[in-house]
């Protein structure tokens, strides 16, 4: 991480530590999560899908949050914190546009300026979210370098922040980047795990599911739901796209201010990820996932674009829920491994809704 940003990250860490221990801040955030974002999100039992797969599937419905994904949990927390720190402007990166939309939303709510960097390739495939961000008053700037996807949007957001750090907060969208981001973003998403744990305790005879699964790009929604079950016997399974499998195919590396598994060439140049899902098109992964993998507490599976397309359609057809392509990855793994999972209860984090992907799927499915 550039030296210029070190004092800002230290200041952010101190501010977050202070805010997180301050009941007034917590109450304010909880009120926003309840009255603005619509929490708690329900757990939906998938009767028809479960019957078809022979696996009991429960969905944690983060897709029902305001703005349509789990990203709002983190963004409301960071925006509130930025305001408390006296910052007047947010910069953010976005892949699929969900974090960008959430950032633009929080900025509108709190009267802050917002600039969102988005890979040029992603701007094309996620036109709907680009328009939403603009409606919300944010400026959307294409990242034109490198692979022109999420990784490059992060680079551009960091470059912006290097120049604007005095009045600007970098509202990073996943459990990645320099300290304190992986920790802070995780804390803001632990609400997913806490709620799920309580809901499962009421819903399930055994109180905890056999398996908890979520898609992993940077890994924020997975860390959020895993956090509620880390101290249980539940198996934790992160699902990566085959073309962006940092844990599955990466080696340790350092980029964007973190040391984690990273897809690289033989010299350490960061490789481009390729996935149907803009939100998972990232060659790295949050460092806590690298840790969970290396200590064996979580395991990471990879699914192909074709398997994801099948999962996307199956959930739509059997449950009337059109998933975002990102959580469709987790479902694709459940479908593929249904024989091994037979008779088990699987809690899947439905991290976002699929409206944003419908245009892309229309082209693919014809």
């Amino acid at each position, binding site marked *: 991480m*550039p030296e210029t940003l070190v004092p800002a990250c230290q200041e952010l860490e101190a501010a977050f530590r202070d805010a997180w221990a301050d009941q007034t801040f917590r109450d304010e955030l909880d009120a926003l999560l309840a009255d603005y974002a619509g929490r708690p999100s329900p757990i939906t039992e998938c009767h028809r899908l479960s019957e078809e797969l022979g696996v009991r599937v429960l969905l944690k419905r983060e897709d029902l949050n305001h703005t349509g994904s789990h990203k709002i949990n983190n963004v409301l927390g960071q925006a509130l914190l930025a305001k408390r720190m006296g910052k007047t402007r947010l910069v953010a990166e976005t892949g699929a546009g969900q974090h960008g939309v959430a950032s633009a939303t929080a900025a509108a709510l709190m009267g802050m300026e917002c600039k969102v960097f988005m890979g040029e390739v992603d701007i094309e495939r996620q036109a709907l979210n680009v328009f939403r961000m603009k409606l919300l008053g944010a400026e959307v700037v294409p990242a034109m370098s490198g692979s022109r996807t999420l990784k490059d949007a992060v680079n551009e957001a960091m470059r912006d922040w290097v120049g604007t750090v005095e009045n600007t907060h970098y509202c990073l969208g996943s459990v990645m980047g320099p300290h304190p981001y992986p920790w802070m973003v995780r804390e803001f998403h632990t609400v997913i795990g806490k709620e799920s744990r309580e809901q499962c305790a009421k819903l399930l005879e055994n109180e905890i599911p056999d398996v908890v699964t979520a898609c992993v790009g940077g890994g924020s929604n997975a860390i959020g739901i895993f956090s509620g079950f880390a101290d249980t016997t539940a198996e934790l399974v992160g699902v990566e796209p085959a073309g962006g499998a940092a844990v599955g195919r990466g080696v340790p590396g350092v980029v964007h201010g973190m040391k984690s598994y990273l897809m690289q060439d033989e010299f350490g140049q960061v490789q481009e990820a390729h996935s149907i899902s803009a939100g998972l098109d990232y060659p790295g992964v949050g460092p806590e996932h690298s840790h969970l993998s290396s200590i064996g507490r979580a395991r990471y599976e990879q699914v192909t674009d074709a398997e994801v397309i099948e999962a996307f359609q199956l959930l739509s057809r059997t449950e009337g829920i059109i998933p975002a392509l990102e959580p469709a990855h987790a479902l694709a793994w459940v479908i593929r491994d249904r024989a091994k999972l037979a008779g088990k209860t699987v809690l899947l984090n439905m991290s976002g809704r699929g409206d944003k992907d419908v245009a892309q799927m229309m082209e693919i499915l014809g």
Partner: protein
Amino acid sequence: MSASLADEGLVIPDAPTEPGEFERSLRSLRDNGRKLLVAYVTGGLHDEWPDVVRAVADAGADAIEIGIPFSDPVMDGPIIQEASELALRDGASPVTVLDTLRTIDAGVPLAVMTYYNLAFHMGHERFAASLYEAGVRAAILPDLPLEEVGPWATAADPAGIETVMLAAPTAPDERLPRVVARSRGFVYAVGLLGVTGERDALAASSLVIARRLKAITDKPVLVGVGVSNAQQAAEVSQVADGCVIGSALMRRVVAGEGPAGAGAFIAEVRAALDAS
């Protein structure tokens, strides 16, 4: 491969008290009243890059920073990003750049400027040794801040590679002396809040950071980032010991001005520094 996820701790070894070869060279020029000029050249950009290095040295650069292109240069603006991308597309790698560098007899001290993952990936010891073998005596890793420099510096110091630290305008007063103490070769004063690239005018922050650093160290203090032409170089060197010129030079190289154009530009900056 030595890269691992293990936490190597935050122990930062003290920098050796004796200046290294690179720093001694800059100090002796400075102490003779010369304003220092370090030029940045992207390694591996076009086949002619060794000639650009020689031309820049002949035109009066006191040392040269060779950029080893990286896929994600977060401290660099559009020009050096483009230069890096073009070089990578031409097949540049740490190995090709260092192999070529070994054959260039520039006659001035050489540093490399690159990003930490390339050193981490190759392994600190191996990377430091390969720099030394290629004739490089200093390294600038702009995404490796003081807190993280320990494992690299532990390998670089004994290998004869001086690690130049960046001092940014955002650093509080208590931080600057620690950055300076760990810096070898020279102290790289970041001239402004922002990434590398040309600016219409010299940022006032350039003079402020130079003044703050000159007040606490006798190591050479060079301002880089945003120093865009001969006049700005002379202006900032009124306070600093000199400057680093990168984007302004690479814009000319990317535009195809070749070794002659690069040399002419550096000669112009040299003349302005000598006249100041």
